[in-house]
C-alpha cells in the first residue's frame, strides 16, 4: 500500500503544472479565482491550446487525438486543471458527444465532427433533459419523425447549459412512440443550432447568471445522416456517454482550490482583533471540511486504482456515485465557508448582472466578495445535475447494497 505518486506520475504532474502556468491566460485564471463567469472566448482559447498540446481529448481513441492515458494520469491532469484553476476541456464536446461519435458514429461523422469537436471549432450542447424528463430521462417526449431523408424534430429541451454559445446540439428524441418500454424507441441525433425552428431562451438562475437555457424544436428538419448509430438505440449511447462523465466527478481539485483561497482571504478579513483565520471556531469549521476532503480524495484514489485494474472500457463503477454524493456536498460546503469569510459583504448584488448599462460600476466592498453569494446559490445545482444525489443513492442501493 502506498499513497504516493510514482516518479513518472510526478514528472507528468509537473509537466501539466508548467504548461498551465505558461499557457493559461492570466485573465481567464483571474476570473476563475474571483468566481466570475468565464465566457466563450476563455473556453475556446484555452481548449485550442490544450488541443495543440494533444491534451484536449486524452481519453479518445488514439487515431482521433487520444493519449492512451491510464485513469491515474487522466485524474492527475483534471486535478491540476481544477487546482490551477483552469477551465476543463468542454465536457459536452470532450466527455459526452465526442466519445459517442468516436464509438458509434460513421466514418463520415467522425471526419466531419471529431477534429472540430476536439478543437472547439464546434461548440456542442446537450439536449437531454426536458420539463417532464429530469431524473426520469427516459420519460422524454421530444419526437423525431422520419420523412424521406430527414428527421422532423418537435419538442422542448431544458437546462441546456451554454446553449447560447453552441453551434450544434446532440438530442435524444423519440423515433418510435410505440416502443414497448420507454427506454426503447429513442434515437441520438445531431442538430445544427442554426436550423430553422430551433429557438433558445435563457433561464436565469438564482445567482443571476444565465448559463442554462430552454431549447425549442418546432418542425426542425435534420438530415437523416445526422443520426448516430442505429435508430431507436439512443438510450444505449446515452448510457455510454454517462460512463465517460465519471472521471473527476468529485471535483476534489475545485474544492481544494477554494479552500486555499478561503485561507488566503481569511487572512485578509478581520474578526475582532485578529485575522479571521486565527479564530478557533473558523479554523475548526475549515479543518472539518478538509478532513472530509482528504477522506474523499483517498476514496477517489481507491476507485481509480480499481479502474486501473479493470482496464479502461469497464462498466461504470457504482462507487463513483459515492464520489458524486460526497464530492458535490463538499463543493457546496466550501461555498458556504466562503460566505463565512465575506460576512456582510455577501449581501450586495452586482447590478451588472441584471443591467448591462451598469457594468462599469465599482464593486461594493472587497472585489473578491462579490461572487461569494452567487457561487453559493449557483452551487446548489451540483447535487441536482448529472443524476441528483437521490438518484445516486438509488444506484448505490441497487448496485452495491443489492436492494
Amino acid at each position: 500500500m502506498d499513497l504516493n505518486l510514482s516518479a513518472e506520475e510526478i514528472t507528468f504532474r509537473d509537466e501539466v503544472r508548467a504548461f498551465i502556468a505558461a499557457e493559461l491566460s492570466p485573465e481567464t485564471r483571474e476570473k476563475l479565482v474571483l468566481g466570475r463567469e468565464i465566457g466563450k472566448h476563455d473556453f475556446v482559447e484555452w481548449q485550442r491550446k490544450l488541443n495543440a498540446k494533444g491534451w484536449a481529448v486524452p481519453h479518445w481513441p488514439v487515431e482521433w487525438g487520444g493519449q492512451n492515458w491510464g485513469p491515474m494520469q487522466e485524474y492527475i491532469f483534471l486535478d491540476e486543471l481544477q487546482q490551477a484553476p483552469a477551465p476543463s476541456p468542454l465536457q459536452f464536446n470532450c466527455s459526452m458527444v465526442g466519445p459517442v461519435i468516436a464509438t458509434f458514429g460513421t466514418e463520415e461523422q467522425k471526419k466531419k465532427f471529431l477534429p472540430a469537436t476536439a478543437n472547439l471549432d464546434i461548440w456542442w450542447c446537450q439536449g437531454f433533459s426536458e420539463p417532464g424528463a429530469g431524473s426520469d430521462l427516459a420519460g422524454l417526449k421530444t419526437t423525431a419523425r422520419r420523412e424521406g431523408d430527414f428527421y422532423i424534430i418537435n419538442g422542448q429541451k431544458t437546462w441546456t447549459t451554454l446553449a447560447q454559445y453552441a453551434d450544434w446540439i446532440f438530442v435524444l428524441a423519440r423515433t418510435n412512440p410505440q416502443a414497448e418500454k420507454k427506454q426503447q424507441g429513442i434515437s441520438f441525433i445531431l442538430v445544427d443550432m442554426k436550423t430553422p425552428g430551433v429557438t433558445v431562451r435563457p433561464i436565469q438562475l438564482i445567482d443571476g447568471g444565465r448559463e442554462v437555457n430552454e431549447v425549442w424544436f418546432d418542425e426542425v428538419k435534420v438530415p437523416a445522416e445526422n443520426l448516430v448509430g442505429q435508430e431507436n438505440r439512443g438510450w444505449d449511447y446515452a448510457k455510454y456517454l454517462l460512463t465517460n462523465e465519471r472521471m473527476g466527478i468529485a471535483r476534489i481539485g475545485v474544492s481544494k482550490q477554494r479552500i486555499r483561497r478561503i485561507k488566503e482571504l481569511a487572512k485578509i478579513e478581520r474578526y475582532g482583533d485578529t485575522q479571521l483565520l486565527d479564530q478557533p471556531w473558523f479554523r475548526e469549521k475549515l479543518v472539518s471540511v478538509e478532513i472530509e476532503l482528504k477522506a474523499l480524495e483517498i476514496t477517489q484514489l481507491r476507485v481509480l486504482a480499481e479502474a486501473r485494474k479493470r482496464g479502461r472500457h469497464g462498466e461504470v463503477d457504482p462507487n463513483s456515485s459515492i464520489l458524486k454524493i460526497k464530492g458535490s456536498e463538499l463543493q457546496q460546503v466550501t461555498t458556504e465557508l466562503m460566505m463565512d469569510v465575506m460576512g456582510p459583504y455577501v449581501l450586495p448584488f452586482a447590478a451588472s448582472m441584471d443591467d448591462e448599462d451598469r457594468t462599469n460600476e465599482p464593486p461594493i466592498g472587497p472585489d473578491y466578495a462579490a461572487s461569494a453569494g452567487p457561487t453559493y446559490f449557483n452551487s446548489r445545482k451540483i447535487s441536482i445535475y448529472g443524476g441528483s444525489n437521490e438518484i445516486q443513492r438509488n444506484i448505490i442501493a441497487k448496485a452495491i447494497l443489492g436492494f
Partner: protein
Amino acid sequence: MDFDFTDDQKLLKESVGKLMASRYGDFEKRKGYQKYPNGYDPAVWAEYAEAGILSLPFSEAQGGFGGGPVETMIVMEEMGTALAVEPYLACVVLAGAILKYGKADHKIADIVSGEAIIALANIERGSRYDLNDVSMPAKLDGTEYVLEGEKSVVLGGGAADYFIVAARTSGNRRDVDGITLLLVDAKSAGISRRGYPTQDGQHAAEVSFGSVRVPVSNVIGGVGKGYAILTRAVDEAIAGLCAEAVGAMDALVKMTVEYLKTRKQFGVAIGSFQALQHRSVDMLVMLEQARSMAIYAALCVDDADEVARGNAISAAKVQIGRSAKFIGQQSVQLHGGIGVTMEYKAGHYFKRLTMIEQMFGDSDYHLRKLAASVAGLAA
C-alpha cells in the same frame, strides 16, 4: 499509488480471518469469554501467540514478525469484525510500541511468547486525553524510583503482569518534559488494582500505587523523555483503533442491510422502502470515508515528521468518530427493538464503536488539535 495488499499481507488477512471465525464465528462464544476473570479466555491469547500475531509489530531482531502499520491494520480490522475482547490493542499495539520505541527489547519477548500482558497506565483523574497531563510523581530514592498515586482506565489493566507507568520526574503537571516511563511489575508491593468491564465488553482497571519501588534500570526511553515515545505509541494505537472501527462498521453495515432484506412488515421486506435504502447508502458512504482515513492513518503513522504524523492521525480519528457515531446509531435505528437488546450482536458493535470515540481523544479533541496546528493537514 497502490491499495493492494502484498501476497504476505493477503495471507495474513486470511489466516487471522480464519482464526477469528473459529473463535468468534458463534457470538455465544464471545459471551463465554467475557465471563473469565479479566474478560477474555487466556487460551485464545495463547492461540494468538501460536499464530504469531502477538509478534506482529516487532522487528525480527526483537523476535517479531517484522510487520508494519499495514499489517497491524489488517489484524485490527479483523478483530473489529469479530468484536474480539482480548487486550491486543492495549498490550501488543500500544504497550508494544512503547517498548519498541523505548528500546526495551527484553520485555518484547514476553509479549511475543504470550507469557506477559503489559498495559500502559497514563490516564489520571482530570488528565482526559492530554498525554502531557501527568501529575503522579516518581521520586528518586537511591537506585529506585518511588511511585505514589492513582492511574485510571488502564486498558487491559486487570490482566496486566506489568504496567508501563507514565510518571513525573521533573517539571509541572502539564509540562511535556519531565515525564518518565517506568516498567513496573504488577506484583510489586504497594500496588492494588480494581479491574472492571467496560461498556463494550472489554476490560480496564483502576490502579493505585502506594510507595511502589521501581529500579532505575526500569526506565524506558530515558528519564524525563517519555512524552515523545508516548505520543508516537498512542498514534500507532489510534491507527490500529481506526482499523478496528472500520472492521466493526463494515460488519455492522452488512448486518443491517441483510436485516432490512429479511425483516418483513406490511407484507414486504422493509428494505424495499426507499427511506431505509437511502439511510443505508449514507451509512455506506460514511463507511468508505472512514476506510479511506484508516488507510491514511496506517500509511502516515510512520512519518518521521511528528507534526505531520500527529495531524494525519487526528484527521483520521475525527472521521472515524463521525462515521462510527452515524453508522452505530443508524444501524440500531434500522434494526428497531432488536438493536437495543443485549442478546443481539448489532448493539455490541454500536457499543464498541461508541467507546472507540471516547478513547485516545474524541472527535472534538482531535478536531481542535488539528485546527490549532499551524501546519494543518497535508494537502
